[in-house]
């Protein structure tokens, strides 16, 4: 079976969200350069897009809107710009279809609700990191104690000789470069981060050795604060 035939067979699964992360990424790379598959994808897309319309309509509880608007109004009042604008700028992912868009949003976006507060009291707390879905085994926590924090990650891929992981601190809509680090045995990495008191989030990207001043990719690890 040729690659093209294989990806053609994946079109339905892709539209239904039934590919795993690696398969989805490979499919998106293929389709970005294959007009025939792109055409078939667009031909079938209306059927997949119609599926939400088939469900029985149920009324969301009022408290859902209330809690949502409370957050939105607070952020609007503070004049917060979408963090994604800075965090997510990269040219690589050009395939802007709903699933791809949503996948981007899922990876490391500032989503407080994806973050589990694991414990802690007073001015210490431990937050679960949201890790790129392409690294299903990886995970980690950010332990915040006063002004300082420790980011601990596990099962992160080794980046070889030319690249390192880099931490970024989000302040409003700015990302400030912080430390770079490598992972050891078992993909474990630990970074001490002084003075995170005013940070809105901690992120990690993969950058050339020596670090970067502007992130070159979407965050692969995210911990909104």
């Amino acid at each position, binding site marked *: 079976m040729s690659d093209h035939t294989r990806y053609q067979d994946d079109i*339905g699964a892709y539209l239904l969200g039934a590919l795993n992360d690696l398969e989805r990424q490979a499919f998106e790379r293929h389709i970005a350069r294959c007009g025939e598959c792109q055409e078939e994808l667009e031909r079938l897309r209306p059927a997949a897009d119609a599926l939400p319309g088939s469900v*029985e309509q149920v009324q969301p509880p009022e408290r859902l809107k209330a809690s949502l608007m409370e957050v939105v109004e607070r952020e609007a009042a503070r004049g917060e710009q979408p963090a994604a604008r800075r965090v997510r700028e990269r040219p690589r992912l050009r395939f802007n279809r709903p*699933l791809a868009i*949503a996948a981007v949003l899922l990876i490391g976006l500032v989503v407080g609700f994806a973050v589990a507060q694991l414990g802690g009291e007073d001015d210490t707390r431990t937050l679960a990191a949201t890790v790129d879905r392409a690294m299903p085994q990886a995970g980690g926590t950010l332990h915040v104690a006063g002004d300082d924090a420790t980011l601990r990650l596990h099962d992160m891929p080794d980046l070889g000789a030319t690249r390192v992981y880099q931490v970024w601190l989000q302040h409003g809509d700015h990302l400030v470069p912080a430390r770079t680090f490598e992972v050891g045995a078992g993909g474990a990495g630990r970074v001490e981060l002084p003075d995170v008191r005013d940070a809105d989030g901690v992120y990690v990207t993969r950058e050339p050795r020596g670090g970067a001043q502007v992130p070159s990719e979407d965050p692969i690890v995210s911990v909104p604060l």
Partner: protein
Amino acid sequence: MAHDIRDLADEEVMQLVQKGDPRAFELLYDRHGGAAFSLAYRMVGKQAPAEDVVQEAFLSIWRSRLRYDATRGSVRTWVLGIVHNRGIDALRRSTVHDRRRETFDGVEERFEARERTDVEVARREEARSVRGALDTLPVEQRQTIELAYFGGFTHNQIAELLDEPIGTVKGRMRLGLDKMRRQLVGGVA
């Protein structure tokens, strides 16, 4: 602004949302929150997780509002696409056992009937049309599509659940969507 924002089309409302207008975002939620919650509820099968999915999705929409591009599709499709992906994430965080039970046994919680509005009537018509298209599918194609889209299962998991080759499962997805598409546009299936 002289006129009521409730008179604006979704794409115009989204332009206001992109400028950070919370009232426009509220209107966006009023228009699509019901469909979003219904989709999330259909996927996760219980009220509390469905609320989490919708809240996560709409906060993502608010915080990434600049990424919406009207040339790439309707606001409704964009919103529901994000909700769907949040739903898949929630399902894939749960165990296969729980998901299988929810998918095959249906849901336990019940809701009171909604107020009948024009929009509600239109939604019911839409639902009838799409369900009609789904009903024309051979049962194995429909089951495969529902397990994938609403159950959040990958094709590998579906192949395992149904004890079918992966190629067969993928084929059912594609053929089923093709037949649905033809039904929805009024063609001969």
